[in-house]
């Protein structure tokens, strides 16, 4: 499957997590990476261009840090302008039918904070309901997100591990070998991706 990463990070130059994830993604041949804040610094998203690109891919990944339980503003602007009626949804809007959508998210809060007893009270996937439902409205299958938790506490080694897992996830998607059965049962995809042997030790 052809994978498209729509990456949104307004302060990428200061990023610890996404800089590593993006590096890993860049090393995957065949993956299309679109750095939205670099392409649209003025927020003037071009629907035409974006739609043409979407049509050439099977898996659409929104990669972004979690900002106020959602994505950064440009990601929302992108959705508002690109997912047009009659194209993405509506009676004649079938352009995205059969594609997969998934989010790759980093969160300041750790895994516990995103549990019912934790600070934020709900798992990350629940906060992502608007994205999930948007995907469904556009006839796409929404896969559970790949989440990097507790970004402030992660060591360099752990960050590298996440990048490694991300690379494996991308390869799995490209080869169309993701176990959909299992993927639908768990709430975060990162738990599905086994670490490569060297790293897990």
């Amino acid at each position, binding site marked *: 499957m052809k994978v498209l990463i729509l990456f949104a990070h307004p302060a990428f130059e200061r990023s610890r997590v996404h800089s590593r994830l993006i590096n890993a993604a860049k090393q995957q041949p065949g993956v299309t990476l679109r750095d939205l804040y670099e392409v649209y610094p*003025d927020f*003037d998203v071009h*629907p*035409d261009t974006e739609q043409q690109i979407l049509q050439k891919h099977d898996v659409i990944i929104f990669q972004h840090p979690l900002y106020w339980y959602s994505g950064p503003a440009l990601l929302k602007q992108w959705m*508002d*302008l*690109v*997912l*047009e*009626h*009659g194209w993405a*949804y*509506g*009676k004649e809007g079938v352009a995205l039918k059969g594609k997969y959508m998934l989010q790759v998210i980093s969160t300041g809060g750790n895994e516990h904070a995103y549990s019912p007893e934790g600070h934020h009270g709900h798992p990350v996937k629940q906060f992502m309901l608007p994205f999930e439902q948007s995907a469904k*409205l556009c006839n796409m299958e929404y896969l559970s997100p790949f989440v990097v938790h507790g970004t402030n506490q992660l060591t360099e080694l752990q960050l590298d591990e996440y990048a490694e897992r991300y690379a494996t996830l991308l390869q799995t998607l490209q080869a169309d070998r993701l176990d959909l059965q299992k993927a639908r049962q768990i709430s975060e995809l990162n738990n599905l991706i086994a670490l490569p042997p060297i790293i897990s030790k």
Partner: protein
Amino acid sequence: MTNESFFYQALVYLATMVVFVPLAKKLNLGSVLGYLLGGIIIGPALLGLIGHGGEDLMHFAEFGVVMMLFLIGLELEPSLLWKLRAPILGLGGLQVAVTSAAVTGIAMLAGLPWNEALVIGMILSLSSTAIVLQMLGEKGLMGSAAGQSSFSVLLFQDIAVIPMLAIFPLLAPAGAVISGQEESASLIAGQPAWVRTLIVLGAVTSLVIGGRYVVKPILHIVARTGLRELFTASALLLVVAIAVLMTLVGLSPALGAFLGGVVLANSEYRHELESDIEPFKGLLLGLFFIGVGATIDFQLIVEHPLLVTGLVLGIMVLKFGVLLGLGKIFKLSREQNLLFAFALPQVGEFAFVLFSFAGGAALLEKETVNAMMAVVAITMALTPLLMLLFEKVIQPRFGCAAGQGGREPDQIDEHERNPVIIAGFDHFGTIVGRFLRASGVKATVLDLDSDRVDLLRKMGLKVYYGDASRADLLKSAGAAQARIIVIAMATPEKNREVVAAVKKHYPHLQMLVRATDNNDAFELMNDGVLRIYRETVDTSLRLASDVLELLGRRAYQSQRAARMFRRFDERSLKGLSAYRDDKQYVNVVRERIEELQKMIQADAYTNMMLRDAGWDRDNAEERN
């Protein structure tokens, strides 16, 4: 035509340069060796074209050294000079002291009386500023640690010439008549010591103060006339005047010129002065080297081959050893230390002056003077060959055959290594410059309007007066190290001149060019410029979008519309330029295209605006 005629001489020297220097360059030998070879060949030993005029020529061409030191001074801001004080005094001082002592000792062992030995020792401790700096500069090694050390030593030596000239008469045997040229020309000969000291101090002070408060305003007036040759004349006048003043008070003209350069290093005319003096310096130094080649007394070599060879080798090996040892003490890396020692083992041009002075002061025998002059010339001629040996044999052992210099920071010219050059600093360039400055990006600014340059300097901005379409000026502004040049001169013609110069000499620079209108933009596209900024587009559109807002449209939509309009306009401009490849059809085609452009623009732009369908109300229904 006689040998004496000016044109005949000019013909011989210029032809020698034009023939031999490119030849030497082609053979990778460097220009200095080319001049020297040319000098040997046209000299009395071979073709005899210049007879025994070599020495006179050198006296005249020594002025090239004065100019070179002026240029070096220009590159050195006082603060930087202050930073280099340790290597200049330490390394330079030790080099002169140790070498003089060693040579004096050996000469005394060889049976010379102590005063003669001391004179020879001091003279031989000097190295050749002209050859070494020219050579290192040409190879791009001035910024390397060895280059900096060589520079420090040479500078100290140039300063040391002055006390040497002062000491020599004292060393002369009692009763000898002093007939040295330099001394008799000086105003202050025969004055008591304290008067001399006062006069010397006064001269230096007036140089520093005059440079600041007299020369700058004069240059300003001259620059305002806009006559280039007048500026060149003023630049030459400045250097000559310094040289005359210094000679009058018995100081070295080279040192004076150096000081004058340092005083003006901070001024806005620095680059312009540099590029005006540079060609004269090059020519005179070339003549000087030809003179060196021509003065080599082959007769003497033939008659006393062993003595001459022995002296040349002995002197060079000794100086090499001292340099190597000092380099080690001053913690140069092995490779840089070798380069340092290979660069400086010759005897310098001041030796000619000092030897003839010492001869005149009856300090040395005439024969000794002649022999030493020949030896000095040979050591100088060997220097480029030694450098070749270093580059081809020694340096490859260190695994870096190619220009080592580039890797180390260029200390001489710190602020010239700015990543950005801004050419043209009127209302357009100023905004570019202010914004870059506010964003922490350093830029070297060049402008042609001397009044403005003055004003901006008063406001504390580093702006230089000069024409950026001249390759030499671009060079002084650090074009070789910069990454980007903003070309924002006031007229399209000037901009295109700069574009041409940059493309020819510094193709690595990314050009961002100001254009007046569409036609100007087309021309620039034809010249291959990729980043073109029509000066009014953004402002006009901002105004237009304000009109929309005042008419009651929402601010966001108005501004977004303006941005879209600009994007579309730029795209169609690029599309149109494709038609312009064949210049003959340009005018005919352009008219048609302009019409076409208007039509397409109107339609496509409207279409584009209608496309913001994502926000449409009716779409929302199905989402509800």
